[in-house]
């Protein structure tokens, strides 16, 4: 941990009226790290993501991205600074085709901003990048289908595709495999591994097999507090974690995952 952290949370708190949902989270994410956030339902995992990605403004505390403060900054600015996120519930442009969905994700990063004088069909670099992403996620055959008519797993894949489209190097994924079957989950995880190669990944995940197989480090969030952060091995053996989260049924997945 000698490198300065790419993403850093300092005593971040979030209240909704009387409800203290996040009660002082401090977390450092190193560049290139794959970091999983686990915790029981209602622990505040999604809220934490919403704070980092700018959807919510923290009640107190500070979040920095490569040393720059991003707490209270608008989501689109944070996105332009190189942080991208996916959503737990598929959040796609359902009236557009798959290709157009990905293209929306690509546009800003390719420098076309709010351009209103170029024909989008003639922006060759944009088309190439779009095709490249569609190809890498395996949606190229469905490129011209309407996003609303995609099968559920494909919608989830599209969600990932939009998220990585901008080429952001800090990627937040909120339960990317939620509701997927086993084989679909395996494929999605392989995709996430490939797509976030060399990038920093912060992931919320329920599937322990995925968590322990994928992540370099894990943080456990319970009632809005990080009760432990460490290597998968440390988390597995942490008594606090076992007690608070994993409970009696704690059958932590073996190394085979």
């Amino acid at each position: 941990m000698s490198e300065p952290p790419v993403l850093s949370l300092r005593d971040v708190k979030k209240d909704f009226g009387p409800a203290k949902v996040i009660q002082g989270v401090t977390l450092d994410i190193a560049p290139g790290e794959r970091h999983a956030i686990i915790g029981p339902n209602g622990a505040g995992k999604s809220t934490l993501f919403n704070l980092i990605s700018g959807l919510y403004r923290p009640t107190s505390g500070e979040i920095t991205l490569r040393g720059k403060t991003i707490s209270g900054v608008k989501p689109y600015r944070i996105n332009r600074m190189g942080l991208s996120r996916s959503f737990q519930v598929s959040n796609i442009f359902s009236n557009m085709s798959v290709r157009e969905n990905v293209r929306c994700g690509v546009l800003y990063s390719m420098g076309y901003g709010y351009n209103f004088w170029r024909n989008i069909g003639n922006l060759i670099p944009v088309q190439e990048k779009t095709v490249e992403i569609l190809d890498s996620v395996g949606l190229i055959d469905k490129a011209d289908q309407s996003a609303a008519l995609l099968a559920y797993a494909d919608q989830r894949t599209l969600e990932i595709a939009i998220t990585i489209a901008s080429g952001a190097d800090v990627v937040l994924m909120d339960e990317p495999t939620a509701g997927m079957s086993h084989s679909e989950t395996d494929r999605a995880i392989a995709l996430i591994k490939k797509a976030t190669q060399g990038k920093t990944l912060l992931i919320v995940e329920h599937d322990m097999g995925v968590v322990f197989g994928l992540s370099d480090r894990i943080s456990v969030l319970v009632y809005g507090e990080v009760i432990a952060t460490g290597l998968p091995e440390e988390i597995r053996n942490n008594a606090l974690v076992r007690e608070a989260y994993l409970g009696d049924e704690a059958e932590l997945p073996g190394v085979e995952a």
Partner: protein
Amino acid sequence: MNQQGTVLDTVSDLGPSRRAKFTRRVLPFIIMAVLLIVIPMLGPSRTALSLLNAIGINIVFALSFNILLGQTGLLSFGHAVYFGLGGYTAMHAMNWIEYADGGFWGSYPMFALPLVGFAGGAFAGALIGWPSCRRAGIPFSMISLGIAELVAATGLIFVSFFGGEEGITGDRMNGVEMFGLNLGQVHQVYWFIAFWTFVGTVAMYAFTRTPLGRLTQAVRDNPQRVEFVGYDPQQVRYLAFIASGGFAGLAGGMSAVNYEIFTPEALSLAPSGLVILMAYIGGIRYFAGPILGAILLTYMQTNLSDFSEAWLLYLGLLFIAMVLFAPGGLAGVVIDVTNRLGKPGAVQQFVKGLVAVATGMIAFFGVVILIEIAVRLTNGHGEVFQPFGIGLPSTSLMSWAIGVCLVAIGVFGLKFTTKQVGER
């Protein structure tokens, strides 16, 4: 290198083929241009030409409105403000051209006046859009209404710009001529309107194909997600608002040349409401929808208003029926029918559809009879409604019974037939 090659191949394979692009994106405009050129060869009357000119103006106006409603998902109740402010700007420019002593306006062709209107409308959009685009959805609609009222009221106060209730007038036969048109006769004005209708339509279609144009649709469908791909939805809405104001101003500039007068009436709620009806009845989900709506409603406005005092009521009923039963508008109905025609069982469905239309017409006739005899009962002119030469006196109970019966037959028939069509 090889890798690059395959990616590029896929790019050209992806999306619609060249052929599909041509038939969907270029051919309609060629047809439009041909129509615009052929129409005057059919020797239309002066009245027909004036109607066509009015239609052209409304096409551009309705399309500009749909940049907001159909494309960006913003329902504005005050779109005539931009039409009016653009038109007023053009009207003043018309007078500057007339009294110009050389200089910029001395060499400015009257033919290009809609560009001044565009500038005026876009400027108004930029100014007014700033506070109003801070909210979307229902609040945006309410704000647009409030601001429209403000501008309309201001129109009566600032006489030097708006000319009071009489408005301001001008003379289009001045300045440099373009394309050999002095804009004197109505057929000359036709070429002017046809040109700008075509240019406006093509430009607005092109706008939908730009990155910003695509983003407006993304903002309409899912503003939250747009924020997480690096765009500020508020900014997208604002820019769309300016573009929409600009094209409304273009239509205003066309109107300034066509009528040579602008009054504060043009800024009021009535034309703002009419453009909503035009766009929606035509179909806001399709680019061509507002064009259909503009043609139909302008035609109705000129012809039906002579036929019946209650034409606005018919219009309102048509609009409500569209909202309830055909949210895709006329364009949606046309596309739905053509889609079904190619499918198996099309003939059967077509027949059923015809039956449904026929029963619908019965109900419609019933409604017309009821409305018309009601109008004649209360307006005190003592006329008798005589559809197809059959006299239906308003005071006779029989007339009312006929109307009610037709409506009842139509409605029940419609319920019965639509049930069958629904079951396939």
